[in-house]
Every structure is written in C-alpha cells, then in structure tokens.
C-alpha cells in the first residue's frame, strides 16, 4: 500500500514535468521581444551641436525614428507617435531603466544643428529626452539608417525625400528588439508601449534561475505581438 502511494507520487511528478513543458510552449507564460540584430554604431551631431554616439545610449531603451524637418504634413504623425510614447511611459513600468528618443535626419544639408534646435523647441523637446541628430557624411548616414536600421530613404530631384516611416526599439545592449513600419491600421504607440513593458520585464527579472525561463521563451519564440 505504501509503495503504491510512492509510485503514484513519483508518476504524478513525472507527468507534471512533461505537462509543464507543453504548457510553457502552448500558453507562453513569458513573452519576450526577439533579438533581431545589432543596432549600428554611429557618431552624429545633435540639436545643441554636441556629439552623440551609440555608446551614449548604452544602458537605455531607445526609440529611433528617421525623418527630415522640411517634410510636409505626414511626418507630423511620426513626431506625434514619439510624443505619445513618451507621455504614456508610465504604462510601460520601466522602473529604473532610462528611456531616450532619437530622431535622425537624413537631410544634413538643410538640417543643421540650429534648424534641428528650433524644430525640437517646437515640440518642447530637449536633448535630455529627445535627441535630433545627423551627420554630413552622406555615405555613413546611408550605412547607419539604410543598412543598419533598415529604414529606406531616397532624395528626390526637388530636394524632398521618399522614405518608409519607421520606428526602431533598441535595448541597453545595443540590440534591435522591435521594428515598426508605419501603419494606419493599428496604433504604433500602443504596440511600442506594450513592447517597452515586455522588454522591461525581461531586463528586470531575467536573473538567476528566471533567466533560464526567459531564455526558454526566446528558444520557443514566445514573441509578444
């Protein structure tokens, strides 16, 4: 009688282990953001004429977007999304993790630091919470934005640009964790806020044995929508 009980306990325990592995895959209790690729390194000049590099962003969650200040109406949507994410940051529960917004201009000829400065002022932005930057090295700029962040842009003959409005979320290790191509169907800000929250959970909790669970989530591709 005693042994039958022991046997049941053992068997139950074994079954539980198998079930929990299945449950993890099916219910995905932990969601993560994929580690997509490395964020490109850069050295740019910001709205204050100061140098800003990717190393300055280490340890911060950074939301990037790419535009030019002479852009007609639709670009205001990009700024509105950047602003909305910043204003709703509380919802993401970042804890102690610093957050930064960076807008990189692909029009260095016209977007000089003073131009960027007055544009930033118009959005009540300052370099502590929203950096506007670019570089005169056109080839490097194309490498950074085009090849590194994979955001397409091309100058037209009339001096305006064709480009794909894009937001990129980068973690404190310089890894791209989210890419958002502009869409009118779903609120990009909602998604970004949700993703910031998922990312913060991982950074704040993935230590010790919990790290294994988070790595399992990466392995099982339990990606947040």
């Amino acid at each position, binding site marked *: 009688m005693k042994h039958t009980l022991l046997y049941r306990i053992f068997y139950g325990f074994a079954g539980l282990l198998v079930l929990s592995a299945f449950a993890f895959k099916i219910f995905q209790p932990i969601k993560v953001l994929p580690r997509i690729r490395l964020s490109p390194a850069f050295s740019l000049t910001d709205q204050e004429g100061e140098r800003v*590099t990717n190393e300055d962003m280490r340890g911060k969650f950074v939301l990037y977007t790419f535009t030019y200040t002479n852009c007609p109406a639709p670009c205001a949507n990009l700024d509105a999304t950047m602003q909305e994410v910043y204003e709703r940051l509380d919802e993401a529960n970042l804890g102690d993790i610093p957050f930064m917004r960076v807008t990189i201009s692909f029009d260095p000829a016209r977007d000089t630091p003073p131009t960027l400065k007055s544009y930033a002022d118009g959005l009540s932005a300052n370099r502590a919470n929203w950096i506007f930057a670019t570089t005169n090295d056109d080839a490097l700029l194309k490498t950074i934005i085009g090849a590194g962040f994979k955001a397409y842009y091309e100058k037209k003959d009339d001096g305006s640009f064709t480009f794909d409005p894009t937001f990129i979320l980068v973690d404190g290790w310089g890894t791209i964790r989210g890419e958002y191509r502009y869409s009118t169907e779903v609120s990009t800000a909602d998604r970004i806020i949700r993703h910031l929250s998922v990312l913060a959970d991982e950074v704040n909790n993935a230590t010790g044995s919990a790290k294994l669970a988070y790595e399992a989530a990466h392995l099982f591709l339990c990606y947040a929508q």
Partner: protein
Amino acid sequence: MKINRFLPALVALAIIILLGAAFYFLRPHTFHGTVFQSPEEASPFTLNVADGKTVSLSDFRGKIVLIYFGYTFCPDVCPATLGAVTQALKQLGDKADQVQVIMISVDPGRDTPEKLAEYVKHFNPTFIGGTNTPEEIAKIASLYGIFYQVSEETTSNGDYLIDHTATLLAIDRDGFLKVVFPFGITSDELADDLKYMLR
C-alpha cells in the same frame, strides 16, 4: 510477490532519473553573451590581409568565425581579449580548427596588413588580421555595432590611442550572427560556448 511490490516504485524512480537527465542534457545552453536569432546573415565584408591577399566573411562558411575589432597599438584591452580567445581555442583541442578568428583594424591609418599579420601571429598563427580603407572600415564597424574614435589620450611615446567598443562577435557556421560577448569574457566561458556551438 515482494518484487512485484517494489517494481512500480523502481520504474517510477527510473523515470524520474531519466527525466532529470533529459532535463539536464536538453536544457537550453546559457551563453555568456547576448544571443541572437537573427533572420538575416551577418553583414558581409572583405579585408586586405598580408601578401596582397583579401579575405571575405563568406570564405569561412562551415566554420565559426570570431570577429574582434581592435588595433595593433592597443595597449591592454585587445591583448586581454585576444589572449582569452587564444586560451579558449587551446581548450577546444582538435576542434579549434573549426573556429576562425579575425581581427579587423579600427586604425586603418597605421595598421597595414603586414603589421596586423605580425601582431595576431603572437597569439595564434591561424588568426587573421585585416584592414581596409577608412571609409570601408567605418561602414563595417557601424554594422557590427562597433563605435571607435581617436582618443584624446596618448601613450608615453606620443602615439595616439583609439577608443573602441570591445565586444567579441561570434558568427555561426551558416554565416549568422549568433553571440555578442562583452569585454571581460574569460577563456573558460568562451570555450564553454564554443564547445556548445561546435557540438
């Protein structure tokens, strides 16, 4: 009769041990760096190496490629990392020939292919040191997340130093970026991860 009473318990015990072993051997390997599951291949590059030759990342498909950005005047950071890599490869034994180490110069102004070859040879004769034009190096480094700049500091001889991101990057056998190791990775940690990648 006695055996029958013990048998179920023994079977159950065996299952537990097997499951424990299965969990131990199948558990995800914990890498000592940031792991990537990138959907695209690592950015391609071509370098000028000694004897007027060139090498490209794609030449090493089938091998694990460890990429390190540094320069030959580098006083401490680069030798520390390359030293750890050298020790880690020794721990791999015969499998070390499935790993190719490439050092890319962030000092194209001073590092010639010959100087780089001479420098990396001190660590391991199989290591490759390469460079390119300043424009091309800037592009390659940016796409691997490597920032570098001429430092305000100089050595006692008046030589300028270069500040640079000191990560070590591992490309898997299919040409995808797999792990980015932080500066300070030990040879044991590196050997552990390389053994896993070579399993």
